[in-house]
């Protein structure tokens, strides 16, 4: 019996999973093990499943995902640091029948862009915000973010975040969930297959809400590792995330159909 080669295995009848056509063939610029890539894929899979590739405009932030438009094979705009919710607001208001979303990091969404985030949520803009919370500024080399945990070391909190002088980590997701303008608010993760499945369900619900013209904004936070910024191996960073990030940033739905849980 001859040996089975990879060619014998890659056959249409054997396919159980495919890369969505809404991801380009460009190789991702993310560090191996980073949650950005997985989350990109989930957003694109959801848009493909909902049949929205020709009717969606995405807004990329400034952060590690600044080049999201190189990977997401749909019409995209790259916004100034923190301003994606304002950019998305106008697109949605002017093209109300299209699907509009932003994809933002914690520095982008919860520091420099706090005003845009809160006001887009408060106006109940009918958009989706996907928020990657990795507790650090990944792109610029690991500085402290508004979401950095107490005591956590970063390049601008080299002795650990001192909450007395540097403030406490900002739970922006709980904050915007208080606003009547948000319709669906959920916090997820993408570090295990089961977490990925849950996160995809949440992202799909968010986009479905927009498709159904539900009154208000749908917001999905993804707690993610930044193994480079945290200076850990990818697997160790996921363990650290489970042990330290999840107790502070509890996973699960926070607001459903306009009602706080």
């Amino acid at each position, binding site marked *: 019996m001859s040996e089975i080669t990879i060619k014998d295995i890659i056959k249409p009848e054997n396919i159980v999973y495919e890369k969505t056509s809404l991801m380009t063939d460009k190789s991702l610029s993310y560090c191996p093990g980073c949650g950005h890539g997985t989350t990109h894929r989930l957003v694109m899979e959801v848009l493909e499943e909902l049949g929205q590739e020709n009717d969606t405009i995405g807004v990329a932030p400034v952060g590690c995902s600044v080049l999201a438009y190189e990977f997401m094979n*749909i019409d995209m*705009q790259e916004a100034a640091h923190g301003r994606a919710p304002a*950019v998305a607001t*106008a697109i949605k208001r*002017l093209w109300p029948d299209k699907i509009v979303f932003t994809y933002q990091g914690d520095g982008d969404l919860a520091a420099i862009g706090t005003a845009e985030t809160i006001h887009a949520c408060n106006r109940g803009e009918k958009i989706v915000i996907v928020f990657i919370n990795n507790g650090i500024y990944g792109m610029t080399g690991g500085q402290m973010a508004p979401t950095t945990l107490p005591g956590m070391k970063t390049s601008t909190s080299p002795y650990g975040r001192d909450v007395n002088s540097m403030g406490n980590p900002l739970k922006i997701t709980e904050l915007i969930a208080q606003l009547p303008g948000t319709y669906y608010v959920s916090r997820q993760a993408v570090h295990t297959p089961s977490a990925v499945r849950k996160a995809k369900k949440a992202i799909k619900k968010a986009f479905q809400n927009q498709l159904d013209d539900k009154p208000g904004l749908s917001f999905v936070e993804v707690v993610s590792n930044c193994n480079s910024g945290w200076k850990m191996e990818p697997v160790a960073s996921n363990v650290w995330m489970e042990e330290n990030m999840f107790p502070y940033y509890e996973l699960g739905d926070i607001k459903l159909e306009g009602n706080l849980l």
Partner: protein
Amino acid sequence: MMKQSKTNKMGELRLMKGNEAFAEAAIRAGVDGYFGYPITPQSEVIEYLMAEKPHERTGMVVLQAESEVASINMLYGGGGSGKKVMTSSSSPGISLMQEGLSYMAGGEVPCVVANVVRGGPGLGDIQPAQSDYFQSVKGGGHGDYRLPVLAPSSVQEMSDFVPIAYELAFRYRTPVLIISDGLIGQMMEKVELFDQMPRLTDEEINELYPWATNGKPKGKKRRVITSLDLDPYKLEKHNFKLQSKYKTIEAEEVRCEIIECEDADYIIIAYGSSARISQKAIQLAREEGLKVGLLRPITLWPFPKKPINELVEKGVKGILSVEMSAGQMVEDVKLAVRERTKVEHFGRYGGVIHSPEEVLEALKNQIIGD
């Protein structure tokens, strides 16, 4: 290139503030969206728009943003999706918009931004000024870019320049500034309004602006609006493209008005409110037998270098640059004149408006001499 119908006027006269005429012109020019934040002396623009319910008239969207930073980034989104978008503000608010304007210059996003200039620096005051000239014509934000700048000097022009600004914005894919001041924004004058122009349909936008990001067309390539390119050689190439666009604008789009310059020994150069005041000053001068003319730049960038050069070559004996600033435009006048004749600046500033008599006095003292 533009499927832009020329404006029609049917003698529809109204007595309006400059700011109101500008707002009414926005509705009539078929603007799709206005995004703004209140600031004196231009809050009448958004107040007028909110009261007019343009959504019922044309479907135009009007939104009060949380800040000028948000407004300008709303314009980035809307303009980048192919819609005609607009904001207006006054000096401190326009300063806040500079990052966004730079992104739009880089990403080649069309929009129209009106600055009803007030006295500065800082919070300054709420009186008319022209001290934002440098910021308007030299770029304003970071990076190598220029924006076309139109300077109305009457309420009529506050209306007429709106469709012109959109033609420039979409022809060259660039933000266009309309620079007036508290005087023109607040004063009431008779204005003949142009007829309602239709807003473009979504199909027309897709046909005219294949670059606009409003949903990837079936079977076609996706579109991206961005100002980023991490490869310096590619970014340099993009800059070459921008620079060649600016060269074309400089060659094609200069506008100015030349008043009583045929026989003039002396020339006043002034724009906006200062041009109105200077026009009175040249009248006073001529009553005294002094042959003085006025050159009024309508585009501050591109600056009317050629018409100035022609006057210098005709042998004018001196030029007074009059501006409600400490002397900003005078630098461009000097660059055009290249020391071939005397050039001086005169102007009150910080919100103080010079009188025609003061202008004439300055002309006599600084240029004509004894």
